């Protein structure tokens, strides 16, 4: 029970990761696939940020009265990863728009049908 409670953020990470991954695999709709991909990536962001937290640590701003700081590096890293994630989402959605124009659908099964029929 204590393991469950004391590490609850990691359980959330695992749950989100599986949910996102499942959506990417199971959904045939391309926009939903990208939503799943986003959830999957977000879980990793939480993983990093959780790792930066130190019990009793304060925000990493230099002050004489504070002795314990949280680790700011994971936050900086994940800022980069968030930017990468946004770029990926933007590119993915742009591709979906182009696919919709070219195929007239954004359902995976219909796209594959149309590719094979011609």
């Amino acid at each position: 029970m204590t393991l469950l409670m004391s590490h609850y953020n990691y359980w959330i990470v695992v749950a989100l990761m599986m949910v996102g991954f499942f959506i990417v695999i199971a959904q045939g709709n391309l926009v939903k696939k990208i939503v799943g991909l986003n959830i999957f990536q977000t879980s990793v962001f939480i993983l990093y940020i959780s790792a930066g937290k130190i019990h009793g640590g304060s925000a990493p701003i230099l002050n004489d009265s504070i002795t314990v700081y949280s680790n700011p590096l994971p936050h900086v890293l994940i800022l980069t990863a968030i930017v990468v994630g946004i770029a990926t989402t933007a590119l993915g959605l742009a591709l979906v728009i182009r696919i919709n124009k070219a195929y007239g659908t954004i359902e995976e099964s219909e796209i594959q049908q149309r590719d094979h029929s011609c």
Partner: protein
Amino acid sequence: MLSHLPILQVILPLLGAPACLILGRGKIAWLFALLVSALSFCIAAMLLHTVYHQGVISYALGGWQAPWGIEYRIDLLNAWLLLIVSGSSTVALLAAQSSINVEIAPEKQTIFFVAWLLCLAGLLGILATGDAFNVFVFLEVSSLSTYTLISLGPHRQSLWAAFRYLIMGTIGATFILIGIGLMYIMTGTLNMQDLAQRLPLASDSSTVFTAYAFILVGISLKLALFPLHLWLPNAYNHAPSIVTTFLAASATKVALYLLIRFTYTVFPSHFSQIDIPLEEIFIVLGITGVLSASVAAIYQADVKRAIAYSSVAQIGYMVVGLGIGGVLGLQATLLHVFNHALMKATLFMALAAIACRIGVTTLTSMQGLGRKMPWTSFGFVVGGLSLIGVPLTAGFISKWYLVSAAALSGRWGLVVLIMVGSLLAIVYIWRVVEALYFKPAADSTPIKEAPLAMLLALWLLVFANVYFGIDTRLPVSISAEAATALQEGRP
């Protein structure tokens, strides 16, 4: 100036990309991209020369010393890969203008070169950096621009292939990100050298093992290692021809480099809690990839797709070399990285030239081309011979090293399977040769020989294939030293 070469290698194409966008317009953008790529190649050659004679170069970015700052660390292994990647980019760009004039609308050509330079910067960045998180960032830089390049292909299937690659590639990169995060949680460092010292202390933790597992799967996705290869044939087949030439010679090699780097430099050689038979996994997956992809290649109606499947098979050979391990196995892998870049660039360059003239690369449409496009067709044949591993071509050298590494480690069954793989390559190359030379053309419309720039690039590659099949001093000595250094550096 000379001491800044490691960063110049990456920053040059990275800054070249926006500069290319500003310069704009057709031919100028192409000439500029070619110039940047050629300069990168010169820098890579200088780096390789320096590393070969003076040893490892360590460059602290912004003057912040490792492990606090980001370190660029060039040893023989990545200097060798830098040369291969920048070289293949330069050769492919030489022919790019003629090819994309046919395949890509004029208003998109500037964007094409911008994406190309970004892709080059990303690939070179992955190779040059000694920082694990930096690897992820550059991986995404190269991946995002690769998706763009593929989506610029001439058919609507290109969009679909790019989207599927985007999904697979992002999952792979995120897996790598998870692995790096777990490593950081255990050690508090991101510098590869630092990680290599600290990870063995935690080698009994299942977190480190999980980190390696995530990184291994993520890289395998990027590498298109069997059974995670399904995105590759589509992506290579539907990308613009010249992009396929570049990617086939560079992108998977960079993923293979990451596999070697993480397996040999970063992670400890064994985990005390869980004993995974890594050698066997590599060999089994590799040889299954060789055989299944080669068989699939035989049944393709489109030659470009068949050669893309053959890429999956060749990646299998490289991973088999890793699995055999030891200095010899590693050397075979590193040799094959170089030789495969040469032969695949040759084959895809010939196909790009054919696509430039007749628009398609199906087997039936290529009938009788041997007489109409003699130079291109013969270039394809030499590339094919090299792929099969015929003596006096580059492909023979790496097959020879791979077979002797397998034989010396006592794996005779593997030797036989590698031979079978070569026989299958004969089958799918012969189908094309038969169509080119021994089948009558469907119609007698005259077809011109490929544009001069493409022929020049193609024959440069053909010459390299034959040259490095005869004079093997350079690749053999470099790969031997790099393999020895990796083996000794292993804790």
